[in-house]
């Protein structure tokens, strides 16, 4: 399964050159850039691990790209995303988020159904064990 979270998951994976331009876009908007990684990309997992603090006050995307290279070196087998955070009033939230690294074998989810009253079903999205996940 190709995980399609983030802003650009339906395009071919971004090159570093393309990532640099998106980071520059964030900086031009005055957003803090954050690098996060996880081995649990469940759609409800809000809190990926932070690669250091969000990068405030940067001018040049090169600084982010250096951190990204380092993060990938350590956690290249995980999902890594970059997000831009806008602290201005009325937003104070993420304004863009996109994947910049995928593990060699992507996560797979399956649906677990618990039949409850009437015809209703309670659904859980759960991770398939890696051994059973397709290549």
């Amino acid at each position, binding site marked *: 399964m190709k*995980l*399609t*979270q983030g*802003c650009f998951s339906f395009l071919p994976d971004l090159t570093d050159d393309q990532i640099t331009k998106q980071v520059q876009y964030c900086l031009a908007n005055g957003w803090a850039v954050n690098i996060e990684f996880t081995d649990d990309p469940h759609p409800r997992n809000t809190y990926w691990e932070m690669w250091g603090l969000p990068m405030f006050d940067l001018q040049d995307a090169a600084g982010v790209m250096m951190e990204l290279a380092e993060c990938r070196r350590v956690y290249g087998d995980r999902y890594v995303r970059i997000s831009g955070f806008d602290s201005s009033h009325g937003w104070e*939230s993420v304004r863009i*988020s996109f994947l910049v690294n995928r593990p060699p074998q992507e996560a797979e989810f399956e*649906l677990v159904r618990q039949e409850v009253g009437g*015809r*209703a*079903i309670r659904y859980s999205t759960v991770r398939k064990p890696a051994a059973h996940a397709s290549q």
Partner: protein
Amino acid sequence: MNAHAGTVRGKERYRSGTMEYARMGYWEPDYVPKDTDVIALFRVTPQEGVDPIEASAAVAGESSTATWTVVWTDRLTAAEKYRAKCYRVDPVPGTPGSYFAYIAYDLDLFEPGSIANLSASIIGNVFGFKPLKALRLEDMRFPVAYVKTFQGPATGIVVERERLDKFGRPLLGATVKPKLGLSGRNYGRVVYEALKGGLDFTKDDENINSQPFMHWRDRFLYCMEAVNRAQAASGEVKGTYLNITAGTMEDMYERAELAKELGSCIVMIDLVIGYTAIQSMAKWARRNDMILHLHRAGHSTYTRQKSHGVSFRVIAKWMRLAGVDHIHAGTVVGKLEGDPNTTRGYYDVCREDFNPTRLEHGLFFDQSWASLNKMMPVASGGIHAGQMHQLLDLLGEDVVLQFGGGTIGHPMGIAAGAIANRVALEAMILARNEGRDYVHEGPEILARAAETCTPLKAALEVWKDVSFNYESTDTPDFVPTALETV
């Protein structure tokens, strides 16, 4: 034309009989509206021979304290405070016989937090008043003190995005088609294919409620199976707007509760359920972590013609106060009415915390929203992937783009239609953020993206000649003019 008042005061004012509205205190050209006043702007078209000032004063009178004759019981009240005051009347540019009347209402005239009371006051009686040929409520200004008596959008754009984990691009939706006749099982198939393909949302149409071909429980059960399967297949949060519109509030609450029990993140209502029902569902949505989608069913009966009715910008303001999260606000390029500048005004009402006066967008007043949540505008009706650059340019990124026919009518199937839309969107966002002139290079950007995406290639081919170029009826009365340099 805004000269003297001529208000009669004291004992003479209350002599039994009739008196011109303009002399009863409803025309006060020297009045300066208070920060706490509600202000309404009407387009007044008096009958032949009726003085525009008197007609406008009558609107102020009939939408506040006046009746057709003088009543002594006014003297038991602080009548001058309760009288709405028309303080300015201007001819409408380029429209002889029509006038813009500015009317101020004291805050005490309105029940806090009630659109029903507000609308009963402002549009309750006066639209049928005989001396007027036509009347239109163009815009309103609400004081912060009044805005703060409303809940506002149950979720708002920011929290909706956080819950969905979707940032930096418009959301994508589709209305299930055909809108009538599908069984629950077939309906759920369309939902599954569209969401699995790459849309964020699918949507019931306004008149999908509970009919012989598909009762509501069936629809909800099959749709939620589809949503959850698509979520597991993509690793993304998905949703479908389950329309809970019904004949009674009790039925609506019952439907809303099942939607919640099944784990839906969003429910939908139609404008025709009425303002009080809308406010009730907004409170329910806030209590139950539910996004509330509003379809503006019926609005064109009173918003479309410029001479008579209520402008949609007023409806949009009322709905932001009432507390819905999504509102259909036009596409400009699609099949339904929508002048670009007027539509821009609606979108600003939905999404900004402060609207400055912008006559060219139909906004006549500064309006502060006092940190009320933002509403997500929804663009729906006759749009397709080939227009992506125009849509992004005209509507921005905080919008739901609904491609119903543009998804389901795709020659390679529904999922392929969804892929085409998502790829077109992401390619356009990428290009915009890179600083490219995406509006002009749009067709080229799409063609390039289609090189590695067959579904997009097919979509661009099949709908390449589709556009809806008709004159808009609801256009702004003011155009910006270049300032002369002295």
